[in-house]
């Protein structure tokens, strides 16, 4: 496949993303579609024309708002990590004629005793790619903000016996807040990232849609973004499959085309998680016990374990493998049990805090939708009841395994990511499972 062809596919995808069925079926409604990238490039805050068309016997009056500013006069800051996704995001925007600026965010300093720092190596890749694409590049330092807003929260949550999700917090507070403000200060109209997610404007609101590549969809991590943030965002590769992203990078000869995807939490990277955490939090080893109180061995510190985890328990012997069922903070005991489907791992309800919605808050305090409780999990049907102070009680249609306090619960209506919150308490048959946190 040549570059032109893959770009066409890239653009076709954009087109599709702009128009695919998010409108509620059976309702005649006015859909304002703003296509923020791709060949359509007609988006705008002002100026418009009407373009009615038929679809499934529903006449949708589609208003494609024409951009007052053409791409050449639309400045887009691309958050570049030095990875292939953001490289291709920048490349596609540049191809579409935008005024693109690549900016690398330095959030963490992991310089070792030999002076080697992941950020330096990643920034070198950003430089190479930006020079290949032909865009200016800069770097911005958010180490302090990251420490204050993300890392402190991360440690606090671990101290409280929960399993935090720093990536959700990073997107909320750093990438789409501090960094977005920085982009705006540089005269940017939009901030683009290499996330596998899509945005679409409907009725003057920007919807957050799942990435086209189901396997890569990153809306789970973006659930806390507000309407205000989303309205200034572009996801140039959200309509593409990862495989195609790599092909585009390879055909364009980008330096990051074959670079390995980063894994794990950004500031820990490839390092040993236990070792990393032990530098910041004192570990208190304790007993590993079954739900019936039978001692099975020692644990290295409760914070090192996650609900449902199998690896690293070191319980030998015959029979089924052992899993983490929960933690008792008071007695510093790690609760373990055999069988991946141990009944103690299952729950049917949770409470969430810090609920946030990507569009305006739902009119009804109770509604049905689907939810994810961890990244890459299949959606589960749920009933949501919003409670005061940004809380929610979320009831599942069927029991779910290993719900983990501190992680995000993210709500979806079809392709739309509605928002989400942080899992606080986990229940079964109306009773709180005290052992999971």
């Amino acid at each position, binding site marked *: 496949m040549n570059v032109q062809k893959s770009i066409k596919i890239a653009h076709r995808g954009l087109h599709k993303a702009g128009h695919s069925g998010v409108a509620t079926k059976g309702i005649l409604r006015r859909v304002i579609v703003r296509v923020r990238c791709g060949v359509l490039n007609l988006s705008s805050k002002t100026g418009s024309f009407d373009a009615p068309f038929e679809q499934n016997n529903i006449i949708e009056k589609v208003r494609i708002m024409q951009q007052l500013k053409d791409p050449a006069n639309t400045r887009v800051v691309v958050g570049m990590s030095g990875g292939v996704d953001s490289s291709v995001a920048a490349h596609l925007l540049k191809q579409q004629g935008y005024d693109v*600026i690549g900016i*690398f965010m*330095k959030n963490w*300093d992991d*310089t070792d005793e030999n002076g080697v*720092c992941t*950020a*330096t190596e*990643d*920034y070198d890749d950003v*430089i190479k790619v930006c020079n290949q694409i032909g865009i*200016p*590049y*800069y*770097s*911005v*330092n958010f180490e302090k903000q990251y420490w204050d807003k993300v890392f402190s929260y991360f440690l606090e949550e671990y101290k409280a016996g929960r399993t935090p999700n720093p990536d959700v917090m990073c997107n909320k507070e750093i990438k789409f807040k501090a960094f977005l403000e*920085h982009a705006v*200060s*540089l*005269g940017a109209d939009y901030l683009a990232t290499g996330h596998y997610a899509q945005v679409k404007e409907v009725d003057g609101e920007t919807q957050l849609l799942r990435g086209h590549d189901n396997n890569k969809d990153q809306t789970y991590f973006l659930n806390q973004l507000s309407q205000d943030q989303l309205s200034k965002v572009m996801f140039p590769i959200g309509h593409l499959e990862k495989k195609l992203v790599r092909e585009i990078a390879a055909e364009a000869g980008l330096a990051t085309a074959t670079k390995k995807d980063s894994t794990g939490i950004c500031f820990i990277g490839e390092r040993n998680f236990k070792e990393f955490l032990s530098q910041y939090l004192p570990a208190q080893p304790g007993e590993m016990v079954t739900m019936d109180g039978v001692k099975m061995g020692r644990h290295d510190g409760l914070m090192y374990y996650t609900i449902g985890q199998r690896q690293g328990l070191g319980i030998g012997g015959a029979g089924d493998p052992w899993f983490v069922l929960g933690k008792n903070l008071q007695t510093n005991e790690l609760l373990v049990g055999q069988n991946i489907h141990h009944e103690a791992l299952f729950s049917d309800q949770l409470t969430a805090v810090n609920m946030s919605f990507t569009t305006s808050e739902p009119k009804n305090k109770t509604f049905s939708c689907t939810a994810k409780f961890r990244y890459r999990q299949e959606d589960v049907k749920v009933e949501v009841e919003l409670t005061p102070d940004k809380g929610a009680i979320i009831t599942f249609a069927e029991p779910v395994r290993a719900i983990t306090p501190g992680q995000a619960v993210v709500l979806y209506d079809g392709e739309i990511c509605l928002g989400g919150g942080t899992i606080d308490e986990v229940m079964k048959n109306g009773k709180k499972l005290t052992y999971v946190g």
Partner: protein
Amino acid sequence: MNRIYLDHAATSPIHPQVITKMMEAMEQTYGNPSSIHATGREARKQLDIARQQFASSIGAKDQDIILTSGGTEADNFAIFGTAYARKTEGSHIITSQIEHHAVLTACEKLEKEGFEVTYLPVNSQGRLTVEDVKQALRDDTILVTIMLGNNEVGTIQPIQEIGELLNDHKATFHTDAVQAYGLLPVSVDDLKVDLLSVSSHKINGPKGIGFLYHRKGTKLSPQFFGGQQERKRRAGTENVPGILAFAEAVTIAQQTMEEKRDQYSQFKKEMVSIWQQAEIDFKVNGEEQFTLPHILNVSFAGTDVESLLVNLDMAGLSVSSGSACTAGSINPSHVLVAMYGEKASELRNSIRFSFGYGVTDAEIKEAATITANVVKRLVK
């Protein structure tokens, strides 16, 4: 867009006469100065003439000039060369908190090797005092290394007074004159220094060449080993085209020094006046009478340097701030930290404008106007 380059303290454009000289040297003077044949002798002859030019420019003798690959090597050579040559006499080194990283990082390395280093503080104008040096001096102090003119804020240090103080002390006295050379008259005897570093690319010469002045009799341990070049002090075939071009740059710098000082002082006045008229909130860092003529370091209240620099770059203005750090991000300048403390707002909102060859009055006015406009927009 015609860009305006006001970052001459970072590096400077090569003067056309220097380019001509370097091209000629590359074409004609290709011999190895150590060779015994005519081609080698011609290169040696040109090299000796150049060396004499370097020496005269600082009131030194030609054999006191050690050619290096630039300012960093000269500073490293002075520091490691002295420390290793005199380690049996003592292990204490005095420097300042505002030195170039070529000095600071070298000192940190020596600390790891067991040397003890005192980093003298500066006042809010970026100056240290002779009294501070006196207080820090010990019997086992073997090296004092203080820069002549600071590269970020431009502060000029009392080198001559320190030199006088050290007359009665055994310590070797080194000054990093990289930023000051070519703009301030430099005489090694007046300054009473034993070692002095100079770089070519700051004065419109090519990159990759510089020299270390080495007062006769000062103990200095070689850091490069091989041939017998530079009187066995620095091995390696001489970079003849670079050296000849550097000498040309030195000649031009000497001839134009007075004129540049007047012109740059005028530039500073103009920029300040435009900012005053624009009614933006700004403050010049450092005290003018103790600041290098070509450096204007300014704090713009209410801005953030990372945004400010990028905006100025996009508006066609090349200026800088502090020193680029890991991954291209801007670390708070250690010089401003030394002047104002860790928490000062100046650390996050200061920009360095630096003037040099080819900068016009019109460019200065435009640069000041661009800056005022960007600052106004960002402060809103």
